[in-house]
């Protein structure tokens, strides 16, 4: 153990338990830091698994024609890549960050419901083992796209779809419990003096995200339950032959699905709003407007879902309503982007790895936002729908948005978690390789999409060959680089330079008042917030 000079609550440590020994520590733990760590490692494992599937997809698309996998397996790869990245990598990573950082940021000793916290984590390995195991079943795994539209996922689904449904149920329960825990922690366990409008923005964005989760994960559960009943109990929610309607599926799914995309980005907004001020050495510009902008985005996310469905045949008034409502989201999002830019304006900026990822986040997420505005134009969407333009759009908001936000957070708080500094040179290498690889992989997709290349198809016209080869090379580069990230984290844990309690001189917040690494128990006596 490194000798940590503990100025905070040292006397309190003697009568507290440290972590238990051995494997059972991780199975039984109710400590928010242990659970946060497990969430983060689980998420990284899923990131590598989902990434491997992306590599299969890009290898097949390296050249036109069918070379490596059969179309049936290709469909399973696109489906599982989406499901694993959304539900297995991005969402658990943010829950892990919430577990680690929210109690430290608001001066709480732990999460409000520590045992439920343990349960919501351990549901995830069960859910994903079940889901991944479908790949080895007769008939294969889910092959209907991550949006699992009926009737592809009901009438024409492989037998294994029932396992998929139960896996979604389990991860939904896990997310709902995690969200309830976050709300209870933030509303009830803040240190004295920590008013709502003094909370760090990461805590604010997570509070709003948690409400979104509580509102829409049950709708997803209802959606897959209806599928289950259609498949096994003879109902006809989504079957036209029995009086149901497949389009109803899309409404129910996207009522969940659109808030879901904000669930995957709002915590990243919060993290970046902590990191940019730290490295610009200026307080965040427009804190209050950031809070209101986040709440506005969350509200608007409930009334825009049919913009995913412009081509299914909705009335003109519906197209207009959903088009304008969608474009309205650009206003609060613009407020955020300008606030980040204003925070950097005339700041004393340095570009350590967390800042590099954060600046790239602001620029590249904005590109993804603009292509989203293009897609929001209902008449133009008929051209873009189901093409690679859509793939380019949502990868631009999810990779440099959600994923870069997670990387930035990881580098920013690694010293606090491990007590060691990461290797700055390797971190910068990781950033630049990711940045170049990611843009190489996804930027050409805009062009092939506008030219009409359909998504989710293992083969393509010869005229798209060059751009696809560039995309694949970029994707391989991005994928391989993530192994470097694994190496950086392991190196940081094992042999990094010892980190100070506050390794970033511009950083603000209660988490920097505790030593690095953060002791097993923190804030047993609440800190005073002025």
């Amino acid at each position: 153990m490194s000798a940590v000079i503990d100025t905070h609550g040292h006397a309190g440590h003697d009568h507290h338990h440290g972590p238990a020994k051995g494997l059972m520590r991780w199975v039984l733990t109710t400590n928010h830091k242990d659970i946060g760590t497990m969430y983060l490692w689980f998420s990284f494992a899923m990131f590598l698994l989902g990434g491997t599937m992306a590599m299969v997809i890009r290898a097949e698309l390296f050249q036109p024609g069918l070379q490596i996998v059969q179309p049936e397996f290709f469909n399973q790869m696109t489906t599982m890549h989406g499901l694993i990245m959304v539900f297995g990598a991005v969402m658990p990573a943010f829950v892990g960050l919430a577990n680690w950082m929210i109690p430290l940021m608001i001066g709480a000793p732990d999460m409000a419901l520590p045992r439920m916290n343990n349960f919501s984590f351990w549901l995830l390995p069960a859910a994903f083992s079940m889901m991944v195991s479908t790949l080895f079943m007769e008939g294969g795994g889910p092959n209907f796209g991550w949006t699992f539209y009926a009737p592809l996922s009901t009438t024409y689904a492989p037998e294994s779809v029932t396992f998929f449904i139960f896996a979604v149920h389990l991860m939904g329960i896990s997310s709902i419990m995690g969200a309830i825990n976050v709300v209870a922690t933030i509303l009830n366990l803040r240190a004295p003096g920590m008013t709502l409008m003094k909370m760090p923005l990461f805590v604010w964005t997570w509070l709003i995200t948690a409400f979104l989760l509580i509102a829409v994960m049950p709708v997803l559960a209802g959606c897959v339950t209806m599928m289950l009943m259609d498949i096994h109990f003879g109902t006809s929610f989504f079957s036209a032959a029995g009086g149901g309607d497949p389009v109803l599926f899309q409404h129910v799914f996207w009522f969940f699905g659109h808030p879901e995309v904000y669930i995957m980005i709002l915590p990243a907004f919060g993290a970046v709003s902590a990191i940019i001020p730290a490295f610009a050495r200026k307080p965040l510009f427009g804190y209050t407007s950031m809070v209101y902008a986040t709440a506005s985005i969350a509200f608007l996310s409930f009334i825009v879902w049919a913009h995913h469905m412009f081509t299914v045949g909705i009335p003109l008034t519906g197209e207009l309503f959903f088009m304008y409502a969608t474009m309205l989201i650009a206003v609060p999002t613009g407020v955020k982007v300008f606030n980040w830019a204003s925070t950097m304006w005339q700041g004393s900026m340095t570009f350590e790895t967390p800042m590099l990822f954060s600046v790239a986040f602001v620029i590249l997420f904005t590109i993804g936002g603009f292509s989203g505005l293009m897609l929001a134009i209902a008449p133009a969407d008929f051209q873009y729908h189901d093409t690679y333009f859509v793939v380019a759009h949502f990868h631009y908001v999810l990779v440099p948005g959600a994923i870069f936000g997670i990387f930035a957070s990881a580098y920013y708080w690694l010293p606090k978690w491990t007590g060691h500094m990461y290797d700055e040179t390797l971190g910068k290498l990781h950033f630049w390789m990711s940045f170049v690889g990611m843009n190489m992989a996804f930027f050409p997709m805009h062009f092939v999409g506008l030219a009409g290349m359909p998504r989710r198809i293992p083969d393509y016209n010869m005229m798209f060959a060059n751009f696809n080869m560039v995309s694949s090379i970029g994707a391989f580069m991005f994928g391989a680089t993530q192994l470097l990230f694994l190496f950086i984290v392991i190196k940081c844990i094992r042999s990094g330079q010892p980190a100070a309690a506050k390794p970033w001189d511009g950083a603000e917040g209660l988490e920097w008042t505790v030593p690095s690494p953060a002791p097993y128990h923190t804030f047993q006596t609440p800190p005073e917030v002025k």
Partner: protein
Amino acid sequence: MNESLSTRRLVIRLSLVVVAMFGFGFALVPIYDVMCQAFGINGKTAGAYEAGEQGVDASRQVRVQFLATNAADMVWEFRPMADEVAVHPGDSTQMVFVAHNPTDRPMTAQAIPSVAPSKAAAYFHKTECFCFTQQVLQPGERIEMPVRFIVDRDLPADVRHLTLAYTLFDITASKPPVAQVGQ
């Protein structure tokens, strides 16, 4: 201990929201049906039309086209007797569709109607339709199935031409043809 009490209350309230939203997911099903029928979205038509005869508007003529489509895996022969008729709004008109089961087993089918353009769906009334029931056909059997309809006098003036499309689904698996005793 006040704090843990309020945590319990908060968790109970949030759990109620979860249950309510789960219910809301299912409530979307009837809401969707009501919205579709009220606004004629998706070309969904209402059930049997009950109101009496409207006066015939002989000054106006609307072309009604008929389409018959088989859903995937459906093997019946299924077609309208005529591709198109010209009707006056308010007039009651009948069209006959023909179905034939060419297989060597009894089968059950369900026809699902749809009207295009969708804004006309609310003005297309069926007083009698084979789509209100299911059809059971014995091996090789052929039947004629009538649909009687009225195009509403209030049909928007710019609609001069509408299409009634049926898709025929094989529902033998979920509704097995009952053995016809005593025929």
